[in-house]
């Protein structure tokens, strides 16, 4: 029995990677009809990304050096992560901009550090204002008592988006806390998820952790319900697994460069669906020299569980009715590049839907992704329209031209779909302004297949 893989996963071992420079997004998108420049609605600033990570570290404090308005980004980030927020800001005003803001930063830090000491890291994050005027934040940081676990992160919005903010925060944590002389564990892996970038991201991590633990691996969650101890252990792992290159790739490269820990993200991007998860596991197994037979045994068992789960209720007519809608339904997917590709493959190969448009919000500069996409299009019998970094009106035109009947994306696409009378929508990525998340429900891994399929089927209303 052969398993198709599009190309091997990128596993870099002991090799210097190219210095990654942040290429700013084309945030000013021009509406072709009106000529008006439009801000990219999907991207938040680097500060927001850093806050997403901070919210995931137990008992962390977050102090932003900037005007008080910047706290709105932090508030949103903590809310998205479902955490109570505890943050501070230096409250820069005009005089601080003119004369320098180190003093207000020190006041803010003092407030953040007292009257009690929380166990978690103290994030000190710059904002646009402090970055532009060039406040000597490093100098302030040097004055902070060494016993206080201060993590300095660059957060200027003009310098990066939420993805780079996530990476910066992770690197800040790892550089501060990771044990510099670790005892390497051969069966331990770091896993970095799509931190705060989807509703299910945390549940996804736990599901993938469960699967990897069934393979006998010890899984260190990085930036997911983490403690300082978890960050310390990052240098002990034998492999870093990142789910999407948009979040965590730079941190993974940092771990490789500093500690020689190779990293991996799958050739099929997310471990979504039966094939996505199987390929992901095989590639991890190859990287860690786990016998293929062991992986196959586990895959067979999990698959049986999934297929058994899907079989339940198959004789209910409502199930059959909804399945009949599914087959061949034209679906458009707008999300980060790796996410959009993964979902397109899953819904086409495993649910027999028909992807007609992929709006790839990122990934135009990711060679592995673009190659995988082209290869998949060649092997499949479909050729969906693909647009990188599409503007909202381009998305609308694409939805209309492709006669889309099902949309997968963020709340922005949810509104677009509603406006265009497309009744079927599944929320798979940020931003989320529609759904309350109380239960922890994954879409990745094997358990995720059952939830994702149920969610898709239930979008079809009677």
């Amino acid at each position, binding site marked *: *029995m*052969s*398993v*198709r893989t599009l190309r091997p996963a990128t596993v870099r071992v002991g090799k210097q990677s190219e210095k990654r420079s942040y290429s700013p997004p084309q945030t000013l998108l021009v509406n072709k009809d009106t000529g008006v420049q439009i801000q990219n609605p999907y991207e938040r600033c680097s500060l927001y990304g850093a806050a997403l990570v901070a919210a995931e570290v137990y008992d962390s404090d977050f102090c932003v050096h900037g005007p008080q308005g910047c706290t709105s980004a932090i508030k949103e980030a903590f809310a998205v992560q479902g955490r109570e927020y505890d943050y501070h800001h230096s409250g820069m005003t005009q005089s601080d901009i003119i004369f320098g803001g180190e003093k207000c930063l020190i006041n803010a830090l003092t407030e953040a550090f007292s009257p009690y000491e929380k166990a978690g890291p103290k994030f000190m994050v710059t904002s646009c204002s402090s970055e532009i005027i060039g406040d000597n934040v490093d100098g302030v940081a040097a004055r902070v008592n060494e016993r206080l676990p201060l993590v300095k992160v660059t957060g200027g919005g003009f310098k990066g988006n939420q993805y780079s903010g996530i990476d910066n925060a992770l690197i800040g944590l790892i550089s501060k806390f990771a044990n510099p002389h670790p005892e390497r564990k051969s069966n331990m892996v770091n896993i970095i998820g799509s931190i705060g970038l989807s509703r299910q991201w945390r549940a996804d991590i736990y599901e993938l952790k469960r699967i990897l633990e069934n393979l006998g691996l010890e899984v260190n969650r990085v930036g997911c319900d983490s403690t300082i101890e978890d960050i310390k252990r990052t240098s002990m792992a034998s492999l870093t697994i990142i789910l999407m290159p948009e979040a965590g790739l730079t941190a993974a490269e940092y771990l490789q460069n500093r500690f020689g820990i190779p990293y991996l993200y799958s050739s099929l991007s997310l471990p979504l*669906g*039966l*094939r996505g998860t199987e390929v992901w596991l095989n590639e991890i197994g190859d990287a860690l020299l786990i016998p293929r037979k062991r992986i196959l045994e586990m895959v067979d068992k999990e698959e*049986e569980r*999934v*297929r*058994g789960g*899907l*079989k339940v209720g*198959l004789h209910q*007519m409502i199930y*059959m*009715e909804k*399945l*009949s*809608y*599914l*087959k*061949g339904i034209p679906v458009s997917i707008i999300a980060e590049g790796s996410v959009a590709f993964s979902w397109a493959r899953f819904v086409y*190969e*495993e*649910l*027999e839907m028909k992807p007609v448009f992929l709006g790839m919000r990122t990934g135009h500069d990711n060679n592995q992704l673009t190659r995988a996409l082209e290869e998949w299009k060649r092997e499949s*019998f479909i050729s969906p329209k693909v647009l990188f970094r599409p503007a909202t009106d381009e998305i609308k035109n694409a939805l209309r031209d492709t006669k889309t009947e099902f949309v997968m994306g963020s709340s922005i696409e949810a509104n677009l779909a509603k406006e265009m009378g497309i009744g079927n929508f599944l929320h798979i990525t940020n931003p989320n302004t529609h759904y309350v998340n109380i239960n922890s429900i994954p879409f990745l891994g094997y358990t995720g*297949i059952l939830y994702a*399929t149920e969610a898709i089927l239930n979008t079809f209303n*009677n």
Partner: protein
Amino acid sequence: MAFIDRSESKNPAEKRMSVWYLSELLQWSKLGLLPARNNMDIEYYCSFLGAYEIASCFQGVATLVHGPSGCVESFNSTRVYPGDSKRFKPKSLSTDMQLNDVIYGASDKLSKAILNVDEKLNPFLILILTNCCADIIGENISAVANKLSGRVKADIINIETGGCSGYGFRKGADRVFEILFDHVADKRNCLEKNPEPTINLFTKRISGRPAEVKEIEELSRLLGKIGVKLNTVIRLGTHYDDLLRIPLAKVNATLCYLFGDGPMQYLNKLFGQPYAKVTFPIGLRGTLDWIKGIAKILEIDSNRLINDPEVELYHKKIEEAQRKYRGREAFIWMPGEKGLAMARFAAELGMKPYLFSMSYFAVEELRDTIDFLLEDGYDFPAVLTGKQDIMLAYNDRSPSEMPILFMPKKFWTGELPTTTVNFFADPILGFKGIDYLLTSIGKAASTAGKKDYSLFNRFVESRFDAVRWDMEGPAIKGLETTTPFRRQP
């Protein structure tokens, strides 16, 4: 003389199969020797439910079941109401007979129900069906209906259709059609036909499928090429007014001959309407045969379609497919007439079809269809036993030599390439259907020997623990058997 199944064939390739050719099975059927009972049919339902399914199809017609409500509720939950039928969903109306009603009779209840239905739903016609209870206790429906005839606006027709009659689904369905057509004949003063060439189209048993609208549009388009129009389409949601228009058409035709044969024969008897003996228009030849069958009855030259450039285009597509698939086995595991039509399409592609879902009672039911397929030169082998074992054995072949399965859903058959054809969702009739099928077959062929990741095409088999019952003596007293009662794992 008795029918004895065979398990060996002269043909070495068929050695492991119990294979009968359709012509052989038909002969046995005509001799009345196939082991099939009267009430066995493909649908596995009784005549009451057959009647109910047809009676409740029409807008403007209220179907009131005199009896307990369980039959109707359970049946309704098994009927699919896919997309298009959102415009019409049959109401389940019954007198919901209880114990007292069975003992003392329920005529009063029936009267009240009829008045209620007439007032609330304002139908043109009320059909009263009886299920087993009302039939067994001998309820006098006609008396009730006659008493009320002046008090309700709707016409009332009573149909005694109890399921315990022993007849199958088909009988009940045909009976209701007959009654409805009689009613149409009563209603119409003038039976002058439309001078233009028009047809009534009967679809198939389960109507209202998402694919149905596309298929009817496609067939209407193709009929339009020879100047034929649709007078009315008999399907879920057809209006009462369209029922009254039925006599206006020149000819009747059907998608599924098994479904349409009974009503078309009756219309022929009642209104002198000829009908086309055609089956599902699947594939190029299947579609052209379907059109030609209709054109012949209408005395229209079908060459207008045959010479159409679109036909030439599809000829080329079929020839290309023949180059790819010639000689390859096609295992058709699709029930009823669909299976025969699909086998014909597979033969058109140069494949060697085997029918895997044929059964004795299916042969009995499909006699007419099998007859005219044989007349056209199609005689397919049918595999009657050992089907799953056969399919599993083919896993050993190289991928390019594996048979291609045609199934509505893919059961666990190892890694054999499978074209799943879902009649609810897949528009496979007419020329556009050819494109769909060729893409599907191509996709299946390209995955031969590879793991199938599709979630709903493949089902794990249920497992249970084998138990040995240590009985002393036979399972049923007084009934000795030579084989010990044993569950097979």
